[in-house]
């Protein structure tokens, strides 16, 4: 089953964890209440930065499509999967519109 289908392109996301950036452009996400530590790679870090309550899922995909040489549909699927996982882990909060 494909994940991320429950998210809407107009959804926005708020960070609910600390992001600890590292010199190699990766980020360690840390949720104080649960002591959950999740490492994310460079593209994950870019998505995390856009979980500021201002960017919609659609805008996040647009931004990444400017950077990554991949089909937009593929990028959208990856972003959906990633954000759904962060939401499930309580690292971001989804604001449905």
């Amino acid at each position: 089953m494909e994940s991320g289908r429950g998210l809407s392109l107009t959804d926005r996301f708020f960070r609910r964890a600390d992001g600890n950036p590292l010199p190699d452009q990766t980020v360690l996400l840390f949720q104080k209440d649960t002591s959950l530590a999740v490492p994310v790679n460079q593209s994950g870090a870019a998505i995390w930065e856009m979980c500021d309550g201002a960017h919609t899922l659609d805008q996040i995909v647009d931004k990444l499509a400017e950077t990554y040489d991949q089909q937009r549909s593929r990028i959208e699927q990856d972003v959906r999967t990633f954000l759904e996982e962060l939401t499930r882990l309580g690292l971001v909060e989804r604001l449905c519109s």
Partner: protein
Amino acid sequence: MLITTAPQKIAWEDSFCVYDFPFCLRSNVPEAQSLIAGLYRNFLAPSFERPVAEAVIESESEARFSWRFVEKAGVTATLPSALWNLEAALCESIIRSQRRSIAIHAATIPVGNSMALLAGRSEAGKTTLSLALARRGFPVAGDDVALIDPETLNVLPIPRCFHVDDPGAILLEADGLRLPAAWPRFRFIVPNDFGVATEPPGRARCLIFMRGPRAGHPGIEPVAQAEMTARVLGETGQGPLSDSETVRVICGLAAGASCFALTPGPLGETADAVADLLRKSMRSVD
């Protein structure tokens, strides 16, 4: 019979201060005094004027040894058991005495003027690999626990006795390591038996995480600093800092290091591969 010396009332005494944790050692068993003193030889201190915690091993008969340190104490039938118990109690107290430093489960290998940390779960093979690295010329500062100073990020290794079982000893001897004379009698061998690290505490420039299962050949691959941070956090004990501060410190540790995951293979091949990596790391720092 392990001990040929009859129980005596004479007490030898040495004083030590391990990362601001002072204690003295007293025993009526010269071998025990010598072995524990050898473990903490780099931390010898002048006699303390004020009372400090006293670590004691006493032989009450040829098959009865008592040990005590602060609130912990026990009686064992063999001297090795008493030595191991006392050493574990000392290690625990040193860690608990830390008001700031974070304890992580890792072996410490001084490399040039910096440190390499070999992290991994219990039974991952840190001790055996550390000793195989000692055979290849790398002094081992500690094989189990290292403290991280949160301000300087310096690594402060805690020396511990190596817990080597018979199969491990056979593997190490097959790899060319000569175990010290104390091994067959006391099962108590320590980092100073394999060369003393002369460098002062330094920052870690190389972090290696040992992951299982063992493979046919060893594999070493770079890992992202965030991933290494998460793995090291998993090997970090409950410390004096808040969780967020601990994360900040471990992130700082990983940020200043090259990070690798090691899948161990046969001991000799694995130790050769890690030794190569450490030498390259030493050259890149220089």
